């Protein structure tokens, strides 16, 4: 995201591309790593009255490095009956959808990867690519358990795409644009009943959409209470059962990176993105402060995601589908109607 700061330094296409790709890698992997560290290892352990990793580094802060090292030195097992190409490519497909998602996120008034009027529409479309990856993993493992997990995952992810998108439509109607940068500016410059103190974060007016988005996000990430695909006590690891070593770690990183990226999108849509109440959004300082503010908002939202994950039991597949089709979709459609009425007449 600092890439565009350096835009004035060198206008060559390949330099710009390199900087943006580098920033994208940093944005995805650093965020994923910090989230894993902070939330999964530490926060969840505190929730369970224990301390989590404490040996690697001070207070266990280098545990992730130890994990990466451990996974790298493991044997890469390929089951005999597995389809080699499909099996090996699956983690990369899932990870690629995350990298494609991060492209539309803005980090500041001038710190963005691409400016695209399709913004959120592109993000939603690209996030479905991970479904293919999961199905590849489930089928290519030549294992009945993985197949069950993969099929469950496909059904679930496709079912929850709809509430996700419909929840976003409400925000788009209120902002008037699909460009994520435009949505941030609309919130930062907006006013609540004439008072412009904290802008107009859409969580206040679109709380229904926020609620639906968080639930659908939880399902898209296959986190409990929607983790039927990875139901640990039944299918051992669902579609990830046959993976070991670095491939498994790629799935792991993909899961947390996607959690971070989806939370970032939620922060942009509902919490005002990189804008801070009190600082003028076009100020140059926001180019440095913006990414940090986004990071903080991501941490808060992922805290909620993991808090829910580690507290609730999981839904059964049919209950899951019933929740999506009979409850969330009608609710989000109602939200769109109400938002449209408010927008047109008020």
């Amino acid at each position: 995201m600092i890439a565009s700061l350096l835009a004035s330094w060198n206008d060559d296409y390949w330099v710009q591309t390199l900087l943006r790709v580098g920033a994208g890698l940093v944005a995805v992997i650093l965020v994923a790593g910090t989230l894993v560290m902070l939330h999964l290892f530490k926060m969840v352990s505190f929730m369970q009255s224990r301390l989590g990793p404490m040996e690697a580094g001070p207070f266990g802060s280098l545990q992730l490095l130890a994990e990466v090292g451990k996974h790298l030195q493991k044997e890469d097992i390929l089951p005999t009956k597995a389809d080699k190409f499909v099996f090996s490519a699956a983690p990369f497909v899932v990870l690629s959808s995350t990298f494609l998602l991060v492209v539309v996120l803005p980090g500041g008034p001038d710190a963005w990867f691409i400016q695209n009027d399709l913004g959120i529409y592109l993000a939603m479309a690209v996030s479905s690519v991970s479904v293919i990856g999961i199905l590849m993993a489930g089928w290519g493992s030549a294992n009945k358990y993985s197949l069950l997990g993969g099929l469950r995952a496909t059904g679930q992810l496709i079912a929850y795409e709809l509430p996700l998108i419909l929840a976003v439509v409400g925000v788009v109607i209120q902002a008037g644009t699909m460009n994520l940068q435009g949505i941030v500016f609309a919130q930062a410059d907006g006013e609540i009943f004439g008072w412009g103190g904290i802008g107009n974060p859409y969580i206040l007016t679109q709380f229904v959409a926020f609620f639906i988005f968080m639930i659908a996000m939880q399902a898209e990430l296959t986190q409990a209470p929607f983790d039927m695909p990875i139901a640990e006590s039944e299918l051992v690891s669902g579609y990830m059962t046959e993976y070991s070593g670095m491939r498994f770690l790629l799935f792991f990183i993909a899961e947390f990176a996607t959690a971070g990226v989806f939370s970032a999108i939620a922060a942009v849509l509902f919490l005002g993105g990189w804008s801070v109440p009190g600082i003028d959004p076009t100020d140059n300082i926001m180019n440095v402060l913006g990414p940090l503010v986004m990071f903080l908002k991501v941490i808060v939202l992922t805290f909620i995601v993991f808090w829910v994950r580690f507290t609730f039991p999981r839904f059964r597949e049919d209950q899951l589908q019933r929740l999506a089709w009979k409850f969330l979709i009608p609710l989000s459609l109602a939200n769109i109607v109400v938002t449209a009425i408010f927008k047109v007449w008020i």
Partner: protein
Amino acid sequence: MGLVPGLIKGLGVTGGTILRTVFPDGIKKPIPNPVKGAETVQYPHEKEEPTARARGVIALHEENCTSCMLCARECPDWCIYIEGHKEKAPPRRAGGKTRQKNILDRFDIDFALCMFCGICVEVCPFEALFWSPEYEFSEPRIADLLHDKSRLSEWMETVPDFEDYEAGSEAKKLKVPPT
């Protein structure tokens, strides 16, 4: 969907636990101190004290042992190996009969087999075996888990005194012989 409050109350329980773990001194001292608040013990650095009666390892008080073999016979796993021989000892007073004493040659307990049931300690008629709460005696080789006479006598230093009993008990408190 039903009543949502059940789910929210559940979140409250885990939320409360994380607050109690991170801030163990309550709201009065909001300093994060999870090392104190967590209920786990970081084992190699801090150790938990087992209770005084804990069955950790068996200690032998050699002077009391008369090689009667009761412990070796009653052990469910037959993990006690005893060998002894008889020797003549001087009479108790001048002009009396020479006595016979049993001298222990070998008294091994194989802790690789031992079930830590305590039957040997219980049946010993001469109070030669005692329980000690020591639990850190693991070895890299299984053969080293066979503790011989001298090692078993060393464990006597770790045997705690017997505790007092609750009110209303008629049991007699035993004494651990001084080493």
